[in-house]
């Protein structure tokens, strides 16, 4: 573990809890799913942004704890919110209690909707773990809660080479968009393209560490994704994040999926 801050925070960043960039040798890296403020009963905690942020980081703490990590080890965070003013007013303070003086690289986004309409904040982390690569298995995928979802809450990469895919969309090899407006066909095509790129990189669906799914409608996506994802991952799911946004690069795209994989 050798997490390194590469540039002193600039005056504008002071007090905001993040650094411009963090580097680390990727000996062992943990990717978390996007976590939200659900209680142990699976229901969102009451009280709005403050309690949701608090609960989100408690859950992330448990995922880090399973891997022997602490918030000091976090390399990168992505904070998705649906209400920036509420996050700025109460969410930031709730978050700060967990990070203390430690500052990861960070991206903050205001999105249209998260998994449920009442979810105000979702956070995912990349974490530099202590220790040397432990060989097999290359990926250790785990949950710290019984969530029932088709994803894992944490995935540890033990010494592999990370593969970063461009966001994959439903385009044919000639560039044409597959069936504008057809969610099922776009879901199939996006995963088909992901499969092609993974194979070209020496990887497979089981090598996927993390996926981030950007959709124009979470409700529509949920009606179509199940069979397609099940066929693709065959039960071996990565950590994942699902976000609803107002647009993608081409107005005909309904979904775009970014994947990080690892090969030995």
């Amino acid at each position, binding site marked *: 573990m050798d997490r390194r801050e*590469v*540039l002193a925070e*600039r*005056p*504008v960043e002071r007090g905001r809890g*993040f*650094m*411009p*960039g*963090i*580097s*680390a*040798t*990727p000996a062992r*890296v943990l990717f978390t799913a996007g976590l939200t403020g659900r209680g142990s009963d699976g229901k969102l905690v009451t009280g709005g942004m403050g309690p949701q942020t608090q609960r989100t980081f408690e859950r992330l703490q448990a995922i880090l704890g399973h891997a022997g990590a602490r918030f000091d080890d976090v*390399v*990168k965070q992505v904070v998705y919110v*649906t209400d*920036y003013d509420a996050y700025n007013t109460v969410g930031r303070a709730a978050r700060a209690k967990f990070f203390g003086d430690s500052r*990861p*690289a*960070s*991206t*903050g*986004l*205001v*999105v*249209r909707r998260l998994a449920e309409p009442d979810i105000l904040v979702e956070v995912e982390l*990349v974490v530099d773990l202590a220790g040397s690569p432990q060989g097999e298995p290359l990926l250790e995928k785990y949950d710290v809660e019984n969530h029932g979802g088709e994803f894992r809450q944490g995935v540890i990469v033990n010494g592999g*080479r*990370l*593969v*970063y*895919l*461009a*966001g*994959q*969309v439903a*385009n044919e*090899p000639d*560039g044409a968009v597959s069936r504008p407006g057809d969610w099922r066909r776009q879901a199939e095509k996006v995963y*088909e*393209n992901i499969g*092609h*790129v993974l*194979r*070209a*990189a*020496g990887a497979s669906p089981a090598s996927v560490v993390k996926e981030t799914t*950007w959709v124009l409608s979470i409700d529509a996506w949920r009606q179509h994704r199940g069979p397609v994802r099940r066929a693709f991952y065959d039960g071996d799911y990565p950590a994942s994040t699902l976000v609803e*946004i*107002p*647009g*993608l*690069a*081409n*107005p005909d795209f309904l979904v*775009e999926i*970014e994947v990080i994989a690892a*090969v030995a």
Partner: protein
Amino acid sequence: MPFSTIATPQARPVANYKMATRMESGRLLYISGQVAWDASGAIIGKGDARAQARQVLQNMRGVLQAAGGDLGNLMKITTYITKIEDRPAVAEARNEVFPGELPASTLIVVKSLFHPDFLVEIEGIAVV
């Protein structure tokens, strides 16, 4: 390079970016989402997505250089814009600094960024 570029005829990029990159050696560098402020915190290019994108990329280059690299070390970038109409201006600014091919790339239209005046934010993963 400490990373390799992955390509396949079966799935091609829809613009001038790499379909995927695989890290081969070196240190992994996660770069925060960069926005169009200068070192003092003043927003550069208020209302002008092209000017903002240029500043964003300049800030990103600063982080890379502090880590001993430059824009060529980027494996992956994600560009967040707040209006789809700004896409051509942002693409133009990116093409100025990535003369051939962009790194593996994703472009997302978000509801907003963490300040109402920010029109574009770019984050990156590099190997240095």
